[in-house]
């Protein structure tokens, strides 16, 4: 199970089915991202796709009848209309229509009636309707999916489509379980189930012949674990996303001073960049030393390149130049990123902040932690955003603690000029009243930490204080694979498929409210241990985007659980 491979296979299918010859691709906004995350433009060139065009913006009227046109769009009403226009006055010689999801027959009929010059050669549904971020991670790119703690209708439809297409592209007909008590998870599960029932012929995969347990689709709610997206991350991919933010595999460095022109926007794709692929889950310290090794190798090679004395040297130079060039690009790119990460780390005092974050997430020592938070708030080096996150963690952690002093901390934030309404919003969004399961399971975590701590002293870098926290998802999945009884916490919607006490072979997790790269790492570790898990979410969050989502989800609603923080509400409308 690899979502990147799924998307690639679909795109390759489009390219090969349209036969040899020069091709252009007609895409919409979303399919453009889907393709660009799976293939670099150079890869598409090698597949004879030379031009790309967006169906929904700024099209020229140039006719190029000698080109084949691969149309790959989402089957939305608007896209169908635009495509109908195109077919009425075709600009290209022939058209191959691929829809990224299930398209109503009436729309096909409508399009067929528009194709008066008989230029359509193929009409197909290929279910590449999600962004494949890592082999085990997909996103639907919905930054905010909720409004007043319920689904935004568009986001719900998109999520149903996205998850259904993931299932179809991996050929899974799963048992659907959702987090009980979460209406958003339940609504999504229901609609996905309805869609599967409606299109039962599509989902007829005949995989249960060997008696294996059917795959599992587990729909979770971000609000069960609001801690993970708030923590600082120290593994490469997660850290880059947290500090510099990754959008569609791209990192925007244009706002940073002293960045060379070619490195304003960097592509981080493990598929195209071997270094990144190998090190995306490695921690900051490890990457530091790896990149040093890479530098040394590069310098050695550069030295070799310099001494061009004989014809043989010259020939050698020409022959190895392309690899050399490629390597220098990789080194430069990651040096740029690492340089930026480490300067931010020092500037924002992140080591200290992160250590405390991990402590709050994993250990209950209220008074001591409160003191440390106050000390950090007083430290000028820590940015106000980091302070807010710390207080947010504290508020979530000690919401029901007798001596909880969230108000006092909020007052301190206010005096530093920070926005305090985030904290009550977060508690409304994902406070104790919303959560299920043991997010702060003291006994378990404390025990594990005691052990690791003791060993950290003697060992450098293996495990450390900055990566103590493991996301709740990991535990949930371990339970699933152990074959634990799930019905009470994760009821199944199509229970007739549920096998008797057998853990599933394949699991697709979908997180309403967004997944994180830390969770992707946990899934990666499980996959390395031989399980087959794919994680997806409405979005891939870092702390900033998560806070935005929380604010959007709680906007304009009445707060019930945070009366004590009354004066920190966003505006008087809430009241």
């Amino acid at each position, binding site marked *: *199970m*690899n979502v990147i*491979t799924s998307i690639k*296979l*679909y795109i390759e*299918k489009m390219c090969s089915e349209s036969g*040899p010859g*020069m091709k252009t691709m007609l895409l919409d906004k979303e399919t453009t991202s889907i393709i660009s995350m799976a293939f670099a433009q150079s890869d598409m*060139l*090698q597949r*004879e796709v*030379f*031009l790309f*065009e967006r169906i929904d913006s700024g099209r020229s009227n*140039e006719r*190029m*009848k*000698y080109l084949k046109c691969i149309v790959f769009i989402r089957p939305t009403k608007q896209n169908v209309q635009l495509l109908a226009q195109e077919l009425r006055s075709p600009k290209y010689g022939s058209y191959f229509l691929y829809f990224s999801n299930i398209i109503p027959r009436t729309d*096909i009929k409508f*399009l067929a*009636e528009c*194709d*008066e010059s008989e230029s*359509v050669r*193929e009409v*197909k549904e*290929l279910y*590449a309707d999600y962004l494949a971020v*890592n*082999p085990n991670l997909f996103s639907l790119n919905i930054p905010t999916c909720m409004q007043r703690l319920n689904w935004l209708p568009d986001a719900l439809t998109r999520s149903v489509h996205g998850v259904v297409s993931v299932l*179809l*592209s*991996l*050929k899974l007909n799963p048992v659907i379980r959702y987090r009980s008590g979460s209406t958003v998870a339940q609504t999504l599960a229901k609609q996905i189930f309805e869609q599967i029932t409606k299109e039962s012929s*599509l989902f007829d995969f005949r995989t249960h012949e060997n008696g294996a347990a059917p795959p599992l689709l587990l729909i979770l709610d971000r609000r069960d674990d609001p801690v993970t997206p708030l923590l600082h991350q120290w593994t490469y991919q997660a850290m880059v996303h947290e500090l510099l933010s990754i959008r569609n595999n791209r990192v925007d460095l244009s706002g940073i001073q002293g960045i060379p022109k070619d490195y304003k926007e960097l592509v981080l794709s493990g598929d195209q960049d071997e270094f990144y*692929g*190998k090190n*995306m*889950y490695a*921690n*900051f*310290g490890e990457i*530091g*030393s790896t990149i040093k090794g890479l530098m040394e190798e590069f310098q050695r090679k550069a030295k070799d390149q310099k001494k061009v004395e004989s014809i043989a040297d010259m020939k050698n130079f020409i*022959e190895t130049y392309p690899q050399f060039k490629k390597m220098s690009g990789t080194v430069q790119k990651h040096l740029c990123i690492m340089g930026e990460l*480490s300067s931010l780390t*020092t500037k924002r005092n992140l080591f200290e902040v992160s250590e405390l974050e991990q402590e709050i997430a994993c250990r209950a020592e209220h008074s001591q932690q409160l003191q440390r938070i106050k000390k950090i708030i007083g430290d000028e080096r820590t940015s106000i955003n980091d302070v807010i996150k710390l207080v947010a963690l504290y508020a979530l952690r000690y919401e029901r603690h007798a001596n909880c002093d969230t108000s006092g901390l909020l007052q301190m934030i206010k005096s530093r000029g920070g926005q305090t309404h985030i904290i009550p919003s977060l508690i409304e969004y994902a406070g104790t009243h919303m959560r299920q399961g043991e997010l702060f399971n003291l006994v378990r975590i404390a025990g594990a930490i005691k*052990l*690791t701590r003791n*060993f950290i002293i*003697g*060992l*450098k*870098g*293996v*495990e*450390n204080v*900055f990566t103590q926290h493991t996301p709740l998802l990991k535990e949930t999945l371990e339970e699933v694979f152990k074959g634990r009884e799930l019905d009470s916490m994760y009821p199944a919607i199509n229970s007739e498929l549920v096998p008797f006490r057998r853990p599933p072979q394949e699991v697709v997790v979908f997180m309403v409210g967004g997944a994180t790269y830390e969770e992707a*790492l946990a899934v990666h*570790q499980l996959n390395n241990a031989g399980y087959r898990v794919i994680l997806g979410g409405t979005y891939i969050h870092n702390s900033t985007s998560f806070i935005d989502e929380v604010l959007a989800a709680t906007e304009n609603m009445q707060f019930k659980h945070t009366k004590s923080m009354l004066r920190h509400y966003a505006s008087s409308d809430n009241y």
Partner: protein
Amino acid sequence: MSNPFGDFDDDGEILEGFICPICREDLKSLEFLISHFERLHPEEDDLKTTFREIFSKAKKKIKSNFEETFDLSRNNASISSRGSSTASNAIAKETSNARSRMNCFNFMDYQEVGKEQQHMEYFQSMRNPRLERYASETNKLIIRLHKLLKDMPIDAVLRKQHEQNIVPWLDGSSVKLCPNCAKSFNITRRKHHCRLCGSIMCHDCSKFLSIEVALELASLTMAHSESLKSENDKTASTNPQQNALRTCDHCLWLLETRQEMHESRTSRPPIIQIYNDIQQLRKNVKPDIEMYLKIINSLYDGESIFTLNDASALRGKIGQVAEAIDILSKRILAIPCEPGTREESLKKSVRLSCIQLIKENMLALPVLPKEDEIRQIQERKRMETEMRIATERRQAMEAYEKYGLEAAASGHSLRTDDYAQGMDLHSIDNWTAHQIRNDDLVQSDDPLVEQINIIKGYIKQARQDLNFEVVETLEINLRELQKEFYERQRSLSRTANTPNGDNSPPSQEAGATIYK
């Protein structure tokens, strides 16, 4: 860069062996390590117990390994890596971040293409009736057009008659309004007829199909358009209405669509032609590149199927194709077009893809090994083979020694037989090597030798033609033949030398390796 995860530079290397976790001394054996540990580090009591545990585990593992190979002394199994990290792994089984450094992106277990759903049939069933109706209508129009154009009188009155003869005009008496724009007919807005379908419209709604285009359209179905054209050339006048046919909107649209479809199917602008040439070259050179890589690998492996000359000849050929592609793609770029158009970006993309192809697949080929390098590799390979044979032989002997007692009881001396075997092989080797030098001249009466010679001839020819796939299969054939030849010679000589040489298990294997 400040690094909270510890400095990797000094302890990054992984030490192997029986290493003391505290002073990092390699102590060569388990007994030494434990005594060293007890002597020098008595204070770390708890650690000691853990190490005992680890080692007892390791011991078990090693033991099981030993049982498999039944060779205690030579197995150099080692307890890996820094002792301290072993300890932590054994006790704290917490999985660390990114423990496996495998690139998860290269990890591609086979995956089939996901589900798809076909809609073309339905699409066609919806599209076809409509298209068929249009097609038959268009065909009718073209036939009429042809009839109209054929023997068209020049005189206006006669022409009108001619037109009405072919297409009956609609009776206009009951039509009060133009069906197209719904304006009433009167003195100034007169009724007109479509010359192709006979329907009525006003002048403003009329379209005109020029005779030239009409001729072209008609010639789609009829061959003798040339004569028509020459006739009509004389009739060409300046009046556009005279030089054109009045038609209605619908008829003209049908004809234009037909015309356009025809054009788009037949048009082959220069860019397409050059592009197809490039694709052809690309397709042709692909097996060459694969072959080249194969040859290079085989050379580096010390095999002698291919020679260095083969590789450099092929490389030259690939280089030539690269150059040809480069020239062709430049020619595409040189086709004139308006700046800023999509055509221009298309040409740039094509050129870019060619450059990319040349750079990555054709110029970045691995370098040829040097002549003496190959010799070294082959020498080493030979040595390795000899070593292997030697060890195999020794192992076999050891095995015999082990079971020798039982064998001795049965009164059959395998050992001497084995020695005899070795001697025997040796002599055959010498003798046949000599044989091969002469067999071109002398042994041509043997059909096998004859076959060998023929194949050698073929190989020479295939080399000249740079057809390396053939070279490869032939070389393999040749080898098989030669092997067969040797086997026969040997069995001949063996039946002469040792009459009871049937029970000699390792000889088969040893014999095969010698000829490599």
